[in-house]
């Protein structure tokens, strides 16, 4: 019985839990409740993934109204993987939140914080699971609005301005998406993704559809922070509370990327997007530019969170690069990196949050000597950083391998070379952090900085170990990614 309604529960559970958090009135209770809900959604995501892998796609008619009239939830390997990442990260981040939130957010706002967190979670899960184009827009706005509010809770007053900046850019992006969806509806009379996919080819050559495509791609690119539409991201990540940065960095852009995959491949189809429209070269160029510009900027930052934020922009370049190949290997490399990057950035931002908890600073110069004081936290940064660079035995290596393979398959060896040079840039900015932490002598030897508490270390290390585990045993990630890519491109892998 319950098993049948898992797709609905996946979204409804956090959605209903969110206002409940507000009613609990006590921060500790709200946290506990949110954590339980986080784990429950994770469990549901695991069950859904298993069901999809063993029995094939799940179509769920919301409220019993069947598809083209009602809203359909549709779970296939692509969405199941994204559900797994989003709920998994929330399950790891929430236990971590207790201490971190207690330090960074005043007590009267903590209940609101967990409410917003669950809303954001519900929105993202909704994006991943819905089979309806308009519903996707609504969920996108639920998650975006709650994340604007979450970001504004940062301690620094610049959190407010960066949240505002994000709000403006995010709303423009959302409105673009709305226009795109509207134009699609005008031409086809449906909003269901599968119906859209069937009816679009008949009208695909009209100017309206071209326009819709352009609006959708630009709108989603804004949301996923594709270079040069990434301007909101570095500030938002830098000034948001540590927990929010971790959660958003690991999930928000990934979910937007998923939405792009859905629109481009499922609705418009690879044939239209890459042959009729010049999506391939455009994405390729922007991905490579983003990769280099953002990595180069990251090298010159003095704030660790900002280094990692620019690195995120660069890493999004890798994902987009994989997608721009429009081959099974390329798209699966993109999806794989989507998963892997969530693991590495999650681990890194959590470790950095733990450092912030103890030192109260994010500046590189204040990091001096932290390697001695917080050995376990810094070890997590080391492994996360190595993963970012793409050293073997970490997930980063797996992504990089497939990206290079995809580039070589298309015969684009210069792209492969550029990918590798990109990871050397990552080596530079990661090493700046490590050198500051391990080599520089602390300016003032104050002894009170000690290792982060276990409630922060355990979640951090859970992700660090996941970085290593999925770098060695890739049967789940590579398997699902290839299946998903085959599905999106309409070929049997």
């Amino acid at each position, binding site marked *: 019985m319950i098993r049948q309604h898992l797709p609905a529960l996946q979204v409804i559970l956090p959605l209903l839990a969110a206002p409940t958090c507000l009613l609990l009135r006590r921060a500790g209770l709200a946290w506990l409740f949110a954590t339980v809900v986080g784990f429950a959604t994770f469990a549901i995501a695991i069950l859904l993934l298993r069901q999809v892998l063993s029995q094939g796609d799940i179509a769920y008619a919301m409220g019993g109204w069947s598809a083209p009239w009602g809203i359909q939830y549709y779970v296939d390997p692509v969405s199941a993987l994204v559900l797994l990442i989003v709920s998994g990260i929330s399950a790891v981040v929430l236990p971590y939140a207790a201490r971190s939130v207690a330090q960074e957010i005043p007590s009267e706002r903590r209940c609101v914080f967990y409410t917003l967190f669950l809303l954001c979670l519900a929105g993202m899960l909704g994006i991943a699971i819905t089979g309806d184009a308009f519903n996707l827009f609504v969920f996108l706005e639920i998650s975006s609005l709650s994340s604007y509010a979450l970001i504004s809770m940062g301690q620094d007053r610049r959190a407010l301005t960066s949240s505002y900046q994000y709000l403006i850019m995010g709303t423009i992006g959302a409105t673009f998406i709305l226009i795109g969806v509207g134009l699609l509806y005008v031409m086809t009379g449906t909003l269901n993704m599968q119906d859209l996919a069937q009816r679009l080819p008949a009208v695909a050559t009209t100017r309206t559809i071209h326009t819709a495509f352009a609006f959708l791609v630009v709108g989603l690119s804004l949301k996923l922070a594709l270079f040069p539409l990434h301007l909101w991201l570095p500030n938002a990540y830098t000034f948001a509370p540590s927990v929010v940065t971790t959660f958003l960095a690991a999930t928000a852009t990934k979910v937007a990327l998923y939405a792009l995959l859905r629109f481009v491949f499922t609705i418009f189809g690879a044939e239209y997007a890459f042959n009729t429209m010049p999506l391939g070269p455009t994405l390729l160029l922007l991905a490579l530019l983003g990769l280099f510009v953002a990595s180069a900027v990251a090298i010159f930052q003095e704030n660790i969170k900002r280094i990692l934020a620019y690195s995120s922009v660069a890493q999004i370049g890798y994902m987009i690069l994989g997608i721009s190949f429009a081959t099974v290997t390329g798209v699966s490399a993109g999806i794989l990196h989507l998963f892997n990057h969530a693991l590495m950035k999650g681990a890194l931002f959590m470790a950095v949050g733990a450092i912030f908890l103890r030192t109260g600073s994010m500046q590189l110069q204040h990091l001096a000597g932290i390697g001695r004081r917080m050995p376990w936290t810094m070890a997590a940064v080391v492994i996360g950083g*190595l993963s970012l660079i793409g050293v*073997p035995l970490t997930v980063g290596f797996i992504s990089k391998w497939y990206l290079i393979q995809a580039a070589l398959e298309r015969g684009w060896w210069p792209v492969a070379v550029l990918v590798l040079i990109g990871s050397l840039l990552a080596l530079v900015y990661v090493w700046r952090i490590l050198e500051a932490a391990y080599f520089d002598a602390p300016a003032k030897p104050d002894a009170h900085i000690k290792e982060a508490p276990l409630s922060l270390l355990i979640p951090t290390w859970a992700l660090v170990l996941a970085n290593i585990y999925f770098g060695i045993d890739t049967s789940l990630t590579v398997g699902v990614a290839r299946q998903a890519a085959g599905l999106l491109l309409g070929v049997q892998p």
Partner: protein
Amino acid sequence: MSQALLLQGVLALPLLAAVLIVISGRSPNVREGVTLISAAGLFALVISLAPPVVDGARPALTLAEPFPGLPLVLELEPLGLLFALVASFLWIITSIYSIGYMRAHHEAHQTRFYACFAVALSAAMGVAFAGNMLTLFVAYEVLTLSTYPLVTHAGSDEAKRAGRVYLGLLMSTSMGFLLLAMVWTWSISGTLDFNPGGILRGKAGNTVLSILFVLYVFGIGKAALMPFHRWLPAAMVAPTPVSALLHAVAVVKAGVFTILKVCVYVFGLETVTTLAATQWLLYLAGATIVLASLVAMTKDNLKARLAYSTISQLSYVILGALLATQTAVIGSAMHIAMHAFGKITLFFCAGAVLVATHKTEVSDMRGLGRRMPITMAAFFIGSLSIIGLPPMGGTWSKWFLVLGTLEAQQMLLLGVLMLSSLLNIAYLLPVPVRGFFSKPKDELADGVKEAPLPCLIAIVITALGCMALFIYPEPLYRLSNLILSA
């Protein structure tokens, strides 16, 4: 089957040692005891693997499968066994030496030092017993990363800068070229296994294979082929035992070992000889031999001189691999072992001088032979082995390499080898000769005497090893011979 499990043990033992070292960090005696015992245990394990290999068995063990069809796998084969034997034996000796050196030199962070050392050895074993290119690459990168804390051990600004050069060069070559070459090979041939005769034969045109070959040779930055050699002199800021074992044996030999493997098992010797790039790479190796020797002559710092000497000697092995004749490959394989014994002796001596007198410059070592006769005598023996004069082991490997150049009719390279031997004499022998026969520049402080006993023991053993290898080169030769007969 049990052989396969032993393979796992070879990797696991040093890792276990690293954990135990960290745990026992508070008591130096236990910590160093653990190091010694695991070094001895590792050597015993490797020895026990030898008989089946000689009988032709090739036990393999799959560890994991990160890419479908491309597992992480360990496999026992003669060349790897040879490398592992040398590295694990010299780990014992270096451990003995380290105890004397690190204590006498009052180095800080000794626990980290011994732990990273053990991890590096595990990685070296991984390189030695890698069953395919992917596994080798993984171990290769772990080796780079685990030696980084050793290179930057001092924690000074100089160490930090040297660390940047070290990591920057090794990572950019391996990530930039080697990884690309591997993925390329994988997409051309669909396998990265080591196969006698090569996996790339006829899979692509001469041009593509040539490019690939160049990518491999430059990608293996640990082989220190010019112009990617700068990391090795930079690594000399490390404590002497690190320079001795890692930057004369484990790390650099892992580099040339990988090149040998690539030549023999990935391309196949036949293919190597037909590639257009081979001739150019041969000249580059020859140029490295001569140029590095010339640079070595200008260095007054003893460790820097030895580092450039190592760069030059590594190119001998590369040369042999590129010549791709049976004799040359045997010479290369033997040179891995011979040079290891010779060069580690020289580094031990340099360290002993440093500990006893705090002198690092060659010009300050005049007359030192009277105070430190054993050290200087050992230096003399090591030098002879590097130069390739009887009765030292280096003679044999050079002999086979010379025969190899003759077989391949590379007269120019024959000339390079001869010239290099002369240059070796010019930059190595002055040290012991002046040590014994010159008057000290300024009177040595009283009380300067030989280095601590553990150091001396290590020096004597490796020096004797150089001689023993001249008299009994047979086992080495047989192992090297097996590489191609498989």
